[in-house]
């Protein structure tokens, strides 16, 4: 129902603006602080005006936290997680929607249940497996009194950083919802034209789900980039550390110089890639989630 309610409108807008400024405030602090000198950033009251020191602060931050390695690692990790999630969820949804097997519901619910078990909940068992890949096999075998001696772990590797994060129910459901909107005749027409199921997947489903894929890419890149707990567990070797871990290294030490301007410049650099990805993909992001373009 659409009504003219000027006072209610003004009220809702006021609440919205308030929320907007609350969100925006920290960003203003970061942007302003990152471009000030150490004296300026420590002045009370804090000035929200940006100054001209950003490049200097940024290069100091870059050097202090070894952001070069960390940024590279994070980019690789986020890219692998994104690609893996997008590909795996497309395949899973394809299997769930287009194939009739007796175990269909088992598969569906086993994917569904992972929504209730995010990584943070299952972090200990997941770590145990990642630290010793054959652990599950060994424990089964030990029931029969057998013992094998194979050691293979994923610690300090890109595989270890990404693989446990790749299975995703969210992505699978996004694809599933889209696949289910496609008419059955589309698959049948393709079958009549002689296309097998794999060919159908690549020729029809992938091109048709382009907007979905971009929406998912956006979400999953940000998700992969923001991972903190898992890399912290998996990585001990500094050459594999990610930006979220470097954030700590950017903090001024307890009794050291309070150069918060460098810290803020560093966090601005770390924030940049997901912002760029979202900015570039947001048009498709909204379309992929809202409408089913056909």
């Amino acid at each position, binding site marked *: 129902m659409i009504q003219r309610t000027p006072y209610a409108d003004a009220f809702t807008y006021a609440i919205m603006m308030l929320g907007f400024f609350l969100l925006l405030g920290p960003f203003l602090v970061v942007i302003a602080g990152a471009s000030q000198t150490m004296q300026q950033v420590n002045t009370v009251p804090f000035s929200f005006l940006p100054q001209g020191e950003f490049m200097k602060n940024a290069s100091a931050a870059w050097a202090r936290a070894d952001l070069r390695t960390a940024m590279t690692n994070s980019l690789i990790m986020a890219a692998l997680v994104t690609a893996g999630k997008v590909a795996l969820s497309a395949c899973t949804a394809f299997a769930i929607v287009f194939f009739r097997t007796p175990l269909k519901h088992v598969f569906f619910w086993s994917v569904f249940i992972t929504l209730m078990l995010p990584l943070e909940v299952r972090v200990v068992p997941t770590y145990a497996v990642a630290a010793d890949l054959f652990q599950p096999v060994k424990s089964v075998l030990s029931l029969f009194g057998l013992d094998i001696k194979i050691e293979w772990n994923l610690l300090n590797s890109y595989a270890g950083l990404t693989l446990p994060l790749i299975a995703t129910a969210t992505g699978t459901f996004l694809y599933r919802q889209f696949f289910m909107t496609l*008419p059955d*005749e*589309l698959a*049948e*027409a*393709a*079958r*009549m*034209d*002689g*296309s097998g199921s794999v*060919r159908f997947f690549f*020729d*029809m489903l992938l*091109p*048709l789900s382009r907007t979905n894929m971009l929406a998912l890419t956006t979400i999953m890149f940000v998700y992969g980039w923001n991972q903190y707990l898992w890399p912290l567990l998996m990585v001990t070797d500094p050459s594999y550390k990610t930006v979220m871990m470097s954030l700590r290294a950017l903090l001024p030490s307890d009794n050291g110089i309070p150069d918060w301007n460098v810290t803020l410049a560093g966090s601005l650099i770390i924030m940049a890639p997901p912002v760029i990805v979202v900015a570039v993909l947001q048009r498709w992001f909204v379309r992929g989630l809202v409408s089913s373009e*056909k």
Partner: protein
Amino acid sequence: MADIQIRAVRKSYGKTPTLHGIDLSFASGEFVVILGPSGCGKSTLLRMIAGLEDITAGDIAIDGRVVNKMEPRERGCAMVFQNYALYPHMTVAGNIGYALKVSGVPKAERERRIAETAKIVGLQDYLERRPAALSGGQRQRVAMARAIIREPKVFLFDEPLSNLDAKLRVTMRAEIRKLHQRLSATSVFVTHDQVEAMTLADRLVVMNRGHVEQVGRPLDIYHRPASTFVASFIGAPAMNLFKTRTEVETATVRLDGAAIPIDPLVAHALQGRDVIVGIRPEQCRLTREGHGIPARIDFVEELGVGRVIHCEIAGEAFAAAVAEDAEVAAGDTVWLSLPPEQLHYFDAESGRRIEFPLPGTDIPAARSSASITHPTGVLS
């Protein structure tokens, strides 16, 4: 070109049977229309020929080869779907040429054949468009072109015209007929529209509830419906049917108190049996007051070429087609006469047609069959 044999084919979904033993045989190059109400199993049968549905029991053979276990692509069938099922992300050319691309035809030859096929259906200027930018009729043509380009032995049409508006439907009907004359591939066309069925078919298959009710040439089916179902399904408005008892002495059937004279030989043959008597609306005649059956008109339908009066006789809806200059209006009482030679007789129990002469009777064959089974009628 290929013939199709359907032998004792059954289909069940779980425990629910939908087709109860279908036996049909389509000759090479024939245009067969399968007609029936929705849910009668006609689309299922078509999809079983195509290979999109499993065959629960029985055999389907195309060109002499049993195809039960074959993939759709191996059967040499092409299908046109009701909602066209075009590939939305491909251009018209991409849609038409997809089957060739899948089978690995080189690009140059593919493009030549796409151009050729597009010309047949009149789409040569639209090859670069997406389906979303086409009208309903053009999409229909793309769907047909996609089927034609494969040079299939068998064309399958699954209610392809039901998404089009009435005028376009008539045009496309003519085009499909012309196309069939040109390509002369065996065609099976499923529809629930009897006008489509009558105009397109070489041979018509009428189905109901998973059974074949009647197979034959369209006019034969129109003139000699094999059951009350076929009688009421074919022809618009539908045939008037009423259940009654034949009286041998007076050679009449009773309808709402009025006695309708019937052929004395037929009356004799029926021996006072309960029958369902049918007459097509266009065979009813208006007559003088006091003769025939009185009927109060509920409403009058204007068709342009004539008018259809709707009334109620003996609690059943009754329709009669009259000339456009007939002076009739809602609320009037008219008198209808039903010419005895235009009556159809069906068994009251089974609804099957009663053919004359009945076995074991001494009615002269020539007379009764001439008068009953070949009435002169026009298709409305």
